Each structure stands twice: as C-alpha cells, then as structure tokens.
C-alpha cells in the first residue's frame, strides 16, 4: 500500500513536469502550427534563470588574505556574498529563498526570450514545412545550449531548495497510514502543487479571458478567426511568450530536484514530444492528462515487483504505451482530426 502511494506521488510529480512542458508545446502547435524543437531549450533556459539569479544575488566580495596561501602558491581569497555584507540576515534569507524568488526574475526574462524568438525567427516559419521548422528550431536549441555551456560549463550546478522545505515530510499519517511509511520530499510536494496551479492558471487564462477565447478559437479554426477580421498573428507572439514562460517556470522550480546543466533540455525534448503526441495534437487537456498518465506509468513500471516479471520494462514503458495508444486511438488521447497528420 505505502509503496503504491509513494509511486503515485512520484508519478504525479514527474507528470507535473511533463505536463508543464507538453502544455507549452501543444499551445505552440495548436495555435501557431509550429513544431518547436527548441522547447526543451526553453525549459533549460528557465532553469538557468534560477542559476543566474542565484549568481546575481550571490555575487561575492573577494578579500585577499595575503597571510594564507593556497596549495598552488597564490594568496587565499575569502569570499562573502555582497548581499550578506549589505543586508545582513535579510540577505542570508534571500539567498536561502533564491529558487522561488527567481520566479520573479524568470517571468520577465522568459517573456523576453519568447518575444524575441517569435518575432525574430518563429514567425517566419509559420508557413514553412514542418521539417524546416524542426531543423531551424533544433539549430536554435543547439545554439542556446552551447551559449549556456560557454558561460556556465557542462557540469550541473546545484540549486538548493529553501531550508524550510528541504527535508522530507510524513504524508502517510494524513491518509491514515502508519507514521514513517510514506515519507516524501517537501520540495516535490511544492513542485506538484506549483505545477497544478500553473496548469490551472493557463487553463483559466484561456477559458475566462477574451484573449484566451480568441486563442482557443484560433486553435479550433484559424482561417475562420482570420476571416472574422481578428488579427490572430499579433496574438501569436503573446501565445509563444506565454508558452516560453510556462516552460521556463517548470525549469526554475525543477532545479532543486535536478541540478541544471546545459543539456537538460535535450533530455526532456523527446519525452515531451511523446507526451504531446500521446495526448493528441492540439489538445491541451490531452497533453496534461498524457503527462500525468505517462509519469505515473513510468513510476509503476520501475517498481521491483514489476521489473522482476518484465526485466527492463522501466526503460521502454513510455514508448510502449505511446505505441499502444497511437494504434488504438489514431490521434492520441484527445487529438483532433487533421492536425499535423500530413
């Protein structure tokens, strides 16, 4: 029982990350008709927003202590973050909360990135064949990650969660299990809640605003919306920027779980495409439910009990499920006819 609860939690948590990335991808597919291979890179850029923010507020005052030397003979440097020098305890607290605080930094940064990408590159590819969209966005993804590598190196850079949510908490007692059986990291709970509220936020935005209504109408039938005299193209920029922010925030909050490195976007890219396609092209609820479904299945397939019966199943479960779903349901879980089928 406790093992199953734990794996459900794991699955939801993983699913949250998948769903957030897939949500942005689908939004871009559905509205702009663009296959964005740089979406993983946006996730990675988001994570590095957290790193950059941490570096910025953690800028260090370097004092050289000439009386002591390092093993290679240069004077020892004593480093102290400026923010602690200036603000004292408040500074220390800010450093402690750097990951959640960097959301404030990441939103405008990712909006800008999304805006520049759409205006500068993507918009010229709306009418191009998908193969060319793939090539150009893949090229962009490589360029972005190489730039990050030049500045930050290839090694992962650890980001700590705030002290208050760093440990693990006993979930089991809330649902009536014995204490100590279902212990789960607090930050992962935070991440799950965060992803749920972000997904909810995006859906509310699309559901309850006029802007969202136009976007949804555009997803359903772009030509008709254009005929109604609505300038759909202009709204595309914002849609793209929103998708970039969603991917970026998913990246920011994921840093304490997965120390970010320049390649993390590529690692998620293939998976997020599988999620989107399993969910059905152009369907937001499909993407989200596929994210959670695949995340949960992956967790269960990794259980020892399952692996002893089917060795290696955890390695292929996602792809296996994708194949089965696509064969049973031609357009994924909730895909619409005619979207990206040619």
């Amino acid at each position, binding site marked *: 029982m406790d093992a199953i609860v734990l794996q459900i939690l794991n699955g939801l948590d993983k699913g949250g990350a998948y769903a957030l990335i897939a949500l942005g991808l689908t939004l871009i597919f559905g509205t702009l008709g663009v296959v964005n291979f740089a979406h993983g890179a946006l996730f990675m850029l988001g994570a590095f927003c957290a790193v950059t923010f941490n570096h910025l507020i953690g800028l260090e005052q370097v004092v050289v202590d000439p009386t002591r030397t390092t093993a290679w003979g240069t004077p020892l440097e004593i480093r102290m973050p400026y923010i602690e020098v200036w603000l004292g305890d408040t500074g220390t607290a800010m450093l402690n909360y750097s990951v959640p605080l960097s959301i404030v930094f990441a939103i405008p940064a990712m909006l800008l990135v999304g805006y520049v990408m759409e205006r500068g590159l993507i918009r010229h590819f709306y009418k191009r064949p998908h*193969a060319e969209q793939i090539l*150009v966005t893949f090229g962009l993804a490589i360029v972005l990650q190489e730039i990050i590598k030049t500045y930050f190196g290839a090694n992962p850079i650890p980001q700590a969660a705030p002290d208050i949510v760093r440990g693990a908490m006993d979930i089991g007692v809330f649902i009536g299990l014995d204490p100590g059986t279902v212990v789960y990291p607090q930050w992962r709970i935070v991440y799950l809640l965060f992803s749920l509220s972000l997904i909810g936020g995006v859906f509310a935005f699309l559901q309850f605003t006029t802007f969202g209504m136009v976007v949804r109408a555009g997803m359903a039938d772009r030509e008709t919306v254009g005929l109604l005299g609505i300038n759909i193209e202009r709204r595309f920029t914002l849609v793209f920027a929103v998708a970039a922010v969603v991917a970026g925030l998913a990246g920011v909050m994921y840093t304490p779980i997965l120390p970010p490195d320049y390649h993390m976007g590529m690692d998620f890219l293939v998976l997020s495409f599988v999620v989107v396609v399993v969910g059905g092209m152009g369907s937001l609820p499909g993407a989200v439910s596929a994210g959670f479904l695949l995340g949960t299945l992956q967790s269960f397939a990794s259980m020892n009990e399952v692996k002893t019966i089917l060795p290696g199943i955890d390695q292929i479960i996602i792809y296996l499920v994708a194949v089965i779903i696509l064969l049973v349901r031609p357009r994924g879980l909730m895909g619409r006819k005619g979207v990206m089928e040619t």
Partner: protein
Amino acid sequence: MMTKTSPRSDLFMFVLFSTAILTMPIWLAPVGAGYPDLLQKFAIFGLFALGFNLLFGLTGYLSFGHAAFLGIGSYAAVWSFKLLGMNPLPALLFSVVFSSLFAVAIGYICLRRSGIYFSILTLAFAQMSYNMAYSVLTPITNGETGLRVLQSDPRLFDISSQTSGSLISNLFGIEMTGYPGFYFCAALLIVGFYISQRIFRSPFGMMLRAVKSNQNRMSYTGLNTRPYTLAAFVISGAFAGVAGSLLAVTDPLAGAERMQWTASGEVVLMTILGGAGTLLGPILGAGLIKYFENIFSAYNEQTLHAIFSFLPDFMEGPVVSLASLFVGEGWHLTLGLLFMVIVIFLPGGIMEGFNRITNMFRRKRSQVGKGTGHSRSPASATAAE
C-alpha cells in the same frame, strides 16, 4: 524542371557522381578530409541519408527512428563476422535481410498513421531498441561496450591459421580498412545512388511523390497507397542496414548508441540540410555534418594560433579566443548556427543554393528579356534533382 531529366542526362550525372566519389581521396585532401576513416564515413552516411531520402524525400513520411535499422545492420554484420568469418559479403547479406525484416515489421505498424504520429511511432520503436540494446539485451549486443569480434569466436569459414592475426574484415585477402575499405564503401554508395536514381525516375517513384503531394486524393482514386509506402520504408530501411553493416565492415564494432534518437535526428538533419527530395542533397548534407564533426572538433587554441599567426600580436589574441568559441569544444555551436542559416536562407538545402547559382548564371546568359518566373518555394527545389 522535371523535363530536364532524360536518360542521357541521368547517365551523365551518374558517371560524374561515380568519378567524384572515387576521386574523393584526391580532391578532399586540401581541406583536410582526405584520410580513409573520414572518407569511409562520408560514403557510409551518404548511403544512409540516400536511403532515408527515398522515404522522406519522396513520400514525405518523416521517420524519426531510422537509426534503429543502422544499428540492426551493424549488429547483424558483427554477428556474421563472429559466426561465419570476416568476409564482408555474408555480413552485408545478413544486414540487408535483418534490417528489411525489422523494417517490414516496424513499417507495417507505423505506416498505419501519418504525419507526426508516424514520426513518434518510429521514434518510439527506435528508442525501445536502443534502450533494450544498451541494457537488457546485453547478451546479444554487449551493451555499452559494444559488440566486437573476439579470437574465441567460431568464425566457421575463416582459415584456421588466422587465429593470431588482427580481427579485421577482409574481402578475399583485401583488408577492409584504410583506402580499400573506402573503395568498398564507395562502390556500394555508387550502387545505392544508381538504385536511388532509378527509383526517382520510375513509375514507382512517381507514385511515392503522389503520396507526398496528396494522399487523400490518391485513396479517392481507389488506390491503396500503403504497399507503396511500405515498399519505400523497407527499401530505405535496407539502405540503412547496408550502411550499418559497412560501419561494422570498416571497423568491426557495433554499439547501441548508433540507434539513439540523436543518430536518427542526425540523418534527418543531413537530408534536410542537403536538400530533401533531391538525389545528391542528402549525400552532401551527410558529408558536411561528418566533416564538421571530425574536422571542426579537432581545432584547438594551438592550431588556431598557428592559423592566425599572420596577424599582429595585439589582434591575434582576441581573434583566437573568438574563433575558439566555434571550434574544438564549441563545434556544436557552429553546427547549430549552420542549421539555422541554411534553413532560413536556403529552405531547399544546399541543393537549392546550387540551383540558385546555376539559375543566376543562366539568367545572365539569356538576359532579362523573359520573366524567368524563378520560384523560390521549396516545392520547386524538390523537383529539381
């Protein structure tokens, strides 16, 4: 532009192509690519991309899992070495048989869907093959370390005296490394080019193009397109199998990473970069990417200093440090930029660039007079083999 292709011009193109391929060791030497291993890679990946193009360029089906057949071809070849001996011919046969069998099975399933659903299905099969080969199937694939030929293997048809020699594939006494290896690959590339040219000009090729332009209309005419697309898929899988087998022939090792999605992505990039749907484009694209991978990654600060030593000192430093961002550990950056530049400015790939240049000359010659109506859409580039 279709009218341009006549049997005579095809023959001319074929002879020109064969000559160019066979003389590669000579004309590629000045750019630093005239050494056997890279030449072999050019030929092998050229063949791989050529086969991929038969599927993607003609039918428009974008397979994202083609590397699986490359890997299967390699494994089949190495197993043939291990069991039967180091002759490349049975290895080639084995690879073609196995990769075709897999292609029939995978193609049969994947071709039930089209568009991105097809892409993801092929990707899923390739990733499953890769993951299994890397871990669970280690008894067959030797996992991470890669499958190699060992002295203790049976190698039934090898002469018994060969037990102490090095285990290199040899065709009746000619060792398939170095230049002989390259010519072996080149010969197969030329054969592959010939087959591909025939398919492009055949009614079968027309049928595949029709699938690309409008599959619905095809089915309305009462024609079942699937046998055609499946045939294209299997031929293209067999090409990949041969390429994989050649990788093993020139270097008797097969590793799982050949099947990873990045390898599948690479052949997609090669094809689009060179010009999908053109005969020569994929081979050019393959050559370009392999050249970058092997030559650009080899520059370091020392070589850059040597290159820019003609500059005055105060300029040399900054120029070298700027240039070093794009070579050595930064060669991926150059590759990414190249992808972007080519696809932004030359949507039809390198071949479109060539066509534009030749058109420019033609237009100059025939003067402006007639509105040449030169279209820049990729569709015209597709038709302009």
